[in-house]
């Protein structure tokens, strides 16, 4: 249908709100509590617009269009209203821009400039930081503007909200406390609720009131004074398709070579690629799946690469632990190899190795330090940096990733296949595993390796694939609100699926809680496309064909005992996180 926005006739679709129709036509209406991933709350009131025939201004985010709707998004009156409103919000927001996760690129500052708002119109309500920590997440309530984005997000991740529900919910770990001007966001004290460390609250907070605990300073200090240690770094599949954004590179452009060069310039002794371990994970997982099917062991088998999902199971659904593959996450698999086989082969004392990993994720910070993950008493990674933190570390050291000449990652963990790289997008683990499972079952490689049915950033995909006469029912979920729907299906019919891939974050790791800001479907699609084109460009696209993977099996002499000791783990029921105020 046609509507008119600011005297311009534009095409819009039935069911759209004014805000959606405007944005789709390149007209930006200011908004803070609106996020395309979330429910409409209409509480920030920045998006008020004038509608012909309607007396008072209306919130564009909550008003559906009608044929012929005429909207004015900019007027003297609206500017005055938005300015007053923004100044009220700024009085609630303690600014700490240089340290902020938004790095000065937030909507508050942008709108303040556009509306000529006075940043100091009101005395700050909370002039001192008001920090609450839980797991790797830091909430500073002196910055919070009560938009409730985190509350909706958390109800999806840890509360009752399902992927097919639109209405706002607030029963997750992050909840609303108090009323009126005293209402605050608060972690729940309910013993049955907990954080899963996905950090989706962080990437959906418009004002940087939530962030992830940083390891930048610690890693930077070590790089400058290495204290006789060998510094080894690995970076996850999705990083190559997202970190460029922090250096002015278009969304989704794969920058593996420049990333490796940047890490070397920082001073790491060895730069390894987690993709290599993703290949190894694929082979181990495919082996386990085939074995579970053949030996009638618990099915479905759940993937384990996403630590927020694992934490969800360990806290909320420990009854499902037997279903999780025992294969380690790629980060911990590579970390374990570094501190065992690689250390031994290079005559380095494992205790003299500092293992750093760059992950799209806050939960990996937890994953690396779980007691079950220790190998010979050592953590597989000593420091975990998020994508954003690595960007910061590079900026701090005046390294412009965009200007770097490409280099290649180091042997023996530098070479990867197309299977490993797609781990970073939802459905990628499933596709990689299916390619290798085919080889395990039939003894032959696939001619066409693409499994289109499990691709795409849709929240929940269901597929049935047949491999050498074995039929497998598969579910691929991203976002816990969709994973919970799979668990609902399984509660009704335990045999509903044979294999379930879960990534707690929307779109998988490319939409991870440690990724650069901002994030939305469009950006996630581009990052995923980056990974799929990386896969398509690879000569080797089957994990089991990876020379680096073969070398690991040779090194382990194909000894299942050794393989299990280094590449597999176990899980245990977990208690509630400590909330530190």
């Amino acid at each position, binding site marked *: 249908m046609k509507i008119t926005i600011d005297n311009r006739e534009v095409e819009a679709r039935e069911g759209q709100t004014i805000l959606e129709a405007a944005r789709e036509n390149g007209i930006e209406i200011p908004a803070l509590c609106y996020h395309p991933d979330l429910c*409409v709350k*209409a*509480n*920030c*009131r920045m998006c*008020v617009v004038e509608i012909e025939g309607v007396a*008072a*201004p209306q*919130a564009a985010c*909550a008003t*559906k269009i009608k044929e012929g709707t005429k909207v004015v998004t900019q007027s003297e*009156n609206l500017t*005055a*209203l938005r300015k*007053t*409103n923004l100044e*009220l*919000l700024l*009085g*609630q927001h303690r600014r700490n821009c240089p340290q902020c996760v938004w790095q000065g690129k937030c909507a508050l500052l942008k709108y303040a400039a556009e509306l000529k708002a006075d940043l100091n119109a*009101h*005395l700050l*309500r909370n002039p001192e930081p008001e920090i609450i920590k839980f797991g790797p997440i830091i909430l500073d309530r002196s910055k919070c*503007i*009560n938009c409730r984005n985190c509350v909706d997000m958390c109800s999806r991740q840890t509360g009752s909200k399902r992927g097919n529900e639109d209405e706002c919910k*607030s029963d997750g770990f992050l909840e*609303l406390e*108090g*009323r*009126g*001007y*005293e*209402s605050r966001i608060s972690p729940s004290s309910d013993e049955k609720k907990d954080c899963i460390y996905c950090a989706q609250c962080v990437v959906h907070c418009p004002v940087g009131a939530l962030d992830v605990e940083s390891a930048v300073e610690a890693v930077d200090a070590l790089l400058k004074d290495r204290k006789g240690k060998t510094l080894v770094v690995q970076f996850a599949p999705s990083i190559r398709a997202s970190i460029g954004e922090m250096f002015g590179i278009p969304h989704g452009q794969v920058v593996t070579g420049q990333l490796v060069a940047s890490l070397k310039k920082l001073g790491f002794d060895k730069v390894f690629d987690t993709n290599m371990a993703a290949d190894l994970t694929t082979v181990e997982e495919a082996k386990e799946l085939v074995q579970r099917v053949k030996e009638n062991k618990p099915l479905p088998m759940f993937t384990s690469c996403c630590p927020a999902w694992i934490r969800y199971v360990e806290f909320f659904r420990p009854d499902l632990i037997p279903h999780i593959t025992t294969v380690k996450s790629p980060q911990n698999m590579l970390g374990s190899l570094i501190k065992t086989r690689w250390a031994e082969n290079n005559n380095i004392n494992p205790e003299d190795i500092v293992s750093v990993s760059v992950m799209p994720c806050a939960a990996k910070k937890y994953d690396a330090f779980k007691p079950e993950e220790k190998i010979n008493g050592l953590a597989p990674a000593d420091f975990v940096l998020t994508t954003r933190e690595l960007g910061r570390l590079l900026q701090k050291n005046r390294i412009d990733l965009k200007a770097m000449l490409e280099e290649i990652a180091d042997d023996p963990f530098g070479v990867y296949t197309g299977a490993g790289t797609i781990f970073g997008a939802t459905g990628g683990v499933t596709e990689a595993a299916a390619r290798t499972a085919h080889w395990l079952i039939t003894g032959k490689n696939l001619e066409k390796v693409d499994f289109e049915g499990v691709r795409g950033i849709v929240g929940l995909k269901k597929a049935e694939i047949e491999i050498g006469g074995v039929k497998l029912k598969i579910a691929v979920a991203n976002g816990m609100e969709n994973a919970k729907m799979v668990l609902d299906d399984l509660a009704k019919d335990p045999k509903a699926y044979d294999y379930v891939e879960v990534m707690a974050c929307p779109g998988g790791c490319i939409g991870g809680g440690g990724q650069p800001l901002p994030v939305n479907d469009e950006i996630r699609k581009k990052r995923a496309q980056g990974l799929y084109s990386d896969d398509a460009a690879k000569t080797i696209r089957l994990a089991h064909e990876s020379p680096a993977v073969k070398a690991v099996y040779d090194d382990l002499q194909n000894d299942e005992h050794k393989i299990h000791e280094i590449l597999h783990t176990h899980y245990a029921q977990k208690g509630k996180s400590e909330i530190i105020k």
Partner: protein
Amino acid sequence: MEIIEKLKQANLRGRGGAGFPAWQKWQMVKDAPGETKYVVCNVSEGEPAVAKDGHILEKWPDIVIEGIKLAMEEVGAKKGYLYLRHDYFDKFKNALAEIIGARAIKIIREPGGYLGGEETALLDSIEGKAVEPRIKPPFPPQEGLFGYPTLINNLETLYFAARIARGEYKNTRFYTIAGDCACPGVFERGESLTIKEILGKTGNWPKDEFFVQAGGGASGTIMLSDELEVPLSGAGSIVIYNKAKTDPRQLGLKWINFFINENCGKCVPCREGVYRLREIFSGEPLDIARAQSIVKLLAAASFCPFGKGVANSIGSLSEKLL
């Protein structure tokens, strides 16, 4: 004649304050598709100095129940709710329960709070959720209680609906008169009378210089003594203030404190705006320009009528008395 037609001819408007034609609301719920519908009688009566719903409950509880029953039959609702302010609940529940008898009308005790009177917040409250307004549309006649078409009427509206059905309506409404006056109380008088006439007819026209707050004891409009030749709009109250004895700024602050306590905190204009109004009204010198810009924002951009009420009283006070 059908009751809806009678309501239309009597031109009965909602007596909660918004003044929406009653027959239209009834018609919308009646026409709404579906088997399940509800009728809710709103006796939240949260405005300070408004006591007319309590007065009606005290004197004619049977007519009120008759009005609810009439509405349920007309719109096709199998269940009704009587949503009572907590003190009214405690006082009248036994008497009301007796009149209700076996009818499917449930008496609910309002958990407390002014915002419970906002119709969508009221629905959330009955549903056991946090008392906050919902996004409209959908309006309650389309999707109300538990998502079903719901008729929400103020108690006085339903009372008069029953009177209209009986042929006993004489175009009156109830006025609560309070403040610096000779005969405070609740009075039933013609709805087209001017405020001046009402004060005169009830023996409440003050001798000394005065102003009134009309249409609610917190959200009502400040009107000067020469502005009273108009009928009352908003909630049914007129509060009289002796001009010499009243410090308008302290009066404003009293309302602001009321609004601060009753505010749900959902939208920025109310949560932050009212907070800053308190700061401005408590500070020296009084920054009227800043207060006015917040008032404008509250009037134009608040999520629900709450902010408009704040703007109404604080705006007219600032404009006329400060």
